[in-house]
């Protein structure tokens, strides 16, 4: 009865930045459509607490470019303020979408705390960008993606998840899990068959089709013969509102680190390990 691929608990990391709030909105919608529980997590960065404890530390304003003294009391109040805003946003998003939710504040190293919490969740959602507002993967996201929780969805601000799911399938176990994940999320399915040659692609396609047939589902197929991540990214760019479900290891990623590969995509990417 219990399906290991079913998504029951979604973890979303919130730090009150616009990116993370966007991730929260998307997570709440997804949780509502899957009937999953939404767990919010705010991490008080242990490094900042330590920093504030040092004598004579200055903080330079991001907008004003003015330096001012930083002490433990001010830092603590700033962090509390962020956590409170995160909790507020969480309550509001969950209220709108009518999902079960919880919110936790943890203290420690951000990456450690996130990965630890992610291990207990079926899906981990985080915002893509870093503080600079650029489109590339932020430092925190980079570290988390590399460490590889079971399923990680990286989204950009403002995106809505009304998806066509583009599942990348190469016959590996990870890609089978990716397919199962896609099926459990539901929606219009498209399968990108990654293969060395056309014969193999044909074989893989019939494999997927057979699998889907059992569940009474249908999908569109695209062959990605000897393709790389950029080709896939170009292909999905022409489609509106698409989530790419990508196995954590794939011939597509050959010669590239996972974060580099993720930078190619403009759409949300769900990594499956």
């Amino acid at each position: 009865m219990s399906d290991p691929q079913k998504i029951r608990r979604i973890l979303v990391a919130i730090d009150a930045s616009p990116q993370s709030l966007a991730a929260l909105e998307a997570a709440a919608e997804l949780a509502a459509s899957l009937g999953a529980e939404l767990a919010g997590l705010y991490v008080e960065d242990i490094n900042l607490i330590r920093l504030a404890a040092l004598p004579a530390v200055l903080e330079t304003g991001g907008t004003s470019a003015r330096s001012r003294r930083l002490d433990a009391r001010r830092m603590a109040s700033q962090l509390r303020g962020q956590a409170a805003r995160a909790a507020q946003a969480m309550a509001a998003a969950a209220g709108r979408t009518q999902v079960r939710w919880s919110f936790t504040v943890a203290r420690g190293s951000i990456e450690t705390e996130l990965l630890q919490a992610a291990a207990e969740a079926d899906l981990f959602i985080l915002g893509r960008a870093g503080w600079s507002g650029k489109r590339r993967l932020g430092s925190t996201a980079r570290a988390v993606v590399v460490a590889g929780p079971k399923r990680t969805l990286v989204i950009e601000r403002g995106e809505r998840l009304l998806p066509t799911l583009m599942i990348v399938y190469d016959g590996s176990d990870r890609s089978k899990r990716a397919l199962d994940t896609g099926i459990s999320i539901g929606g219009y399915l498209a399968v990108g068959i990654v293969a060395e040659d056309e014969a193999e692609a044909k074989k893989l396609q019939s494999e997927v089709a057979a699998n889907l047939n059992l569940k009474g589902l249908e999908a569109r197929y695209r062959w990605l013969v000897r393709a790389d991540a950029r080709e896939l990214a170009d292909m999905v760019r022409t489609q509106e509102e698409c989530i790419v479900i990508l196995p954590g290891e794939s011939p597509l990623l050959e010669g590239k680190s996972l974060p580099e590969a993720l930078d190619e995509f403009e759409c949300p990417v769900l990594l499956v390990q």
Partner: protein
Amino acid sequence: MPVKALEPAQLCQRCDPAQFDFKTTEDLEHLADFIGQPRAIEALEFGVGIRQKGYNIFAFGPEGIGKENLVRKTFEAAAASERVPSDWCYVQNFEQPHKPRALELPAGKGSEFKRDMEQFVDDLQNVLPITFESEEYRNRLQEVQEALNEQQEAALGELRARAEQVGLAVLRTPAGLAIAPVRDGEVISPEEFQGMPSEQREELEKDITDLQEELEKMLMNVPGWQRELREQITDLNREMADIAVGGLIRQLVEKYAESSGIVEHLEAVQLDVVRHVREITDEGDTSQISDRPSSRGPLAALAAGGARSTLRRYQVNLLVDHGSSEGAPVIYEDNPTFQNLLGRIEHTTQLGALITDFNLIKPGALHRANDGYLILDARKLFQEPFAWEGLKRALRSEQLRMETPGQVQSFISTVTLDPEPIPLKAKVALLGEPLLYYLLMEHDPESRELFRVASDFDDQMDRDSESQMLYARLIGSLATVHDLRPLDPGGVARVIEHSSRIVSDGRKLSIQMNHITDLMREANYWAGESGREIVTTEDVSKAIDAQIYRSDRIRERFQEQIHRKTVLIDTAGAQVGQVNGLSVYQFGDFAFGRPSRITARVRMGKGEVLDIEREVELGGPIHSKGVLILSSFLGSRYSVDRQLSLSASLVFEQSYGGIEGDSASSAELYALLSSLADVPVKQSLAVTGSVDQYGRVQAIGGVNEKIEGFFDICQTRGLDGNHGVLIPDSNVQHLMLRDDVVQAVAEGKFHVYPIETIDQGIELLTDMPAGEPDEEGSCPENTVNGKVRARLAGFAEEAESGKARQDDDSEGDQAEDKSGEEKNEGGSES
């Protein structure tokens, strides 16, 4: 030699139906031309032909004479062969938006240009989004944005690397960035920091300070970089827009290459589109171009309004469209207000404020009549505030400049426009009554400069057999035009007779078309009532009688007063010093005559004739003049060698209103003579006519009404063959008397006497010879003149002997009675 009464034929200039050789007016050729207005027509043709400034036309004449019709026909005839004027448009002036530009285009091209620009706006809304969603644009935009990110990243990366070298890290704090000493990726603890050797610690602190300064510098550059980014994006947008719009504009420039104004405008449009590309595309998708958060609600609506108003600027306001015109325009503006003449600038409200733009400029009659003809009613024009001054300003400057009356008077200071003036070249005709024209020329010198052509419409024309035939054709044409039954020759003849009666002259015909047309409409009605298909004499007579009856109430009331002896008028017997005078009353269009009892009393005095009417200020100046002439006549005729020692008083009995005119002066003189000579005057006769210093009787107005007025009284009391009226001989040509009067004369029951001199009149009135003076000036004893002379000599002797004594004269006395009020008019003299 006794005066002979007039023959019946002399009493009315009949029109003989037998002279017409048609059956009904349907057989007659249509009369397209106007008759009887050669002077006005020549003036109009001159006015149309002459092209110099200021030769506008003032056509004046009585109301209903057909001025508008004739002016319009003359204008239309000229306009048909003239070139169709240009179309005019207003377009946005991108440099000075409050001064819209005027563009001239060949006739019909205006609407084409307007359509082309509408298409352009449409295309713009399609082409711009396509351009800004293109792969090319998105990639280039990303390039620009990435470049900035990389710049920032590089700067920060460099800082991070330098920090790393000395064991430091750049950390993000909730409000900014901070530099911290780290070990193995973790900030060192305060204990460890404190535990460091002081030298190492100081070095670390120095490094931190240095890096902090660098960090500050770097962050200070960020706004500059962002501005640079925005500028680059703007440049990119312009470049792309230029490419997108350039093609559209080029097509139009090729099409309208002949008009430099349009080409100039199109170039300005291109520049403006490129400058405002954000506002235009904002109407659609904003995310591609601006970083603004997508807005909903009232602000979004406002933004959309902004885009619409941006696009409005590329529209064309086609002010004057001659696309379907043939020849030059002929415009009659029925309601010549300032704005209807010179155009107006409308306003709309936006968020409670009044705003306007060139699209809200509306043309006036002068715009529509430019290079053509405009007809205006002068009286209406003068009644409209500012309209006359506005028209003159436009004609003088030969420019159509749009100003609101409020602006002209500086009443209003709402935001408004100052559109580029349009050159004006129009021929304007004002229509009005003569009085308006004369007053205008007298009091407004400027109007003389601007309306140099006077077209003077006559209200009558000569009557002869040729013009009667022409008139018959006119009647036929009127019947056709107004969809009336045709007239037979008898009907036509009756209309012609009435036409003469309207102008009170048997040798003239009225060309006041409204009166004739009214009569024909009414005759047509009566013909219909009698079930006739052709209008006959009977119908026309019935129409005339009905017209009279409808306006007749007051006349009837006056006559009733006389019959009931409330007002005393004697029509039989003889009285000393009492004469029946005749006066004309006018109420609106309807005039009628009525007798008045004029009495005179004399005594010895200082040679003055007292006009009681004047003493009580009921007599007008002309009446007084007539009376003064009498005393001069008396003095010079009867008292050449002696002082005129007479005191006489004259009065219109039972007259309670003003009296004007000198048509009663002969009657007054007869009363005086009768009183002086103590000879009774026959009351069966009535008198009209003015008199000069030599005793000659002169023509008066309203002769027909006067005769008929007395005739009606006598007829009611019973005509006995003695009744009659004395009229000036020179008025015989004006006689157009009613049928029943003519009939009575023919039967010898009534007489009309043409009088040339006072002596002729007094003989008729008294049946006593007037008496020819001999060489010494004295007259036979048993004549009127002899008796007068003797009486005056008696007065003079009495005065000279110094025994002047107030003495009553013996004469007939009068009964007095009261009466209703009245208004008396003697009519104007010919």
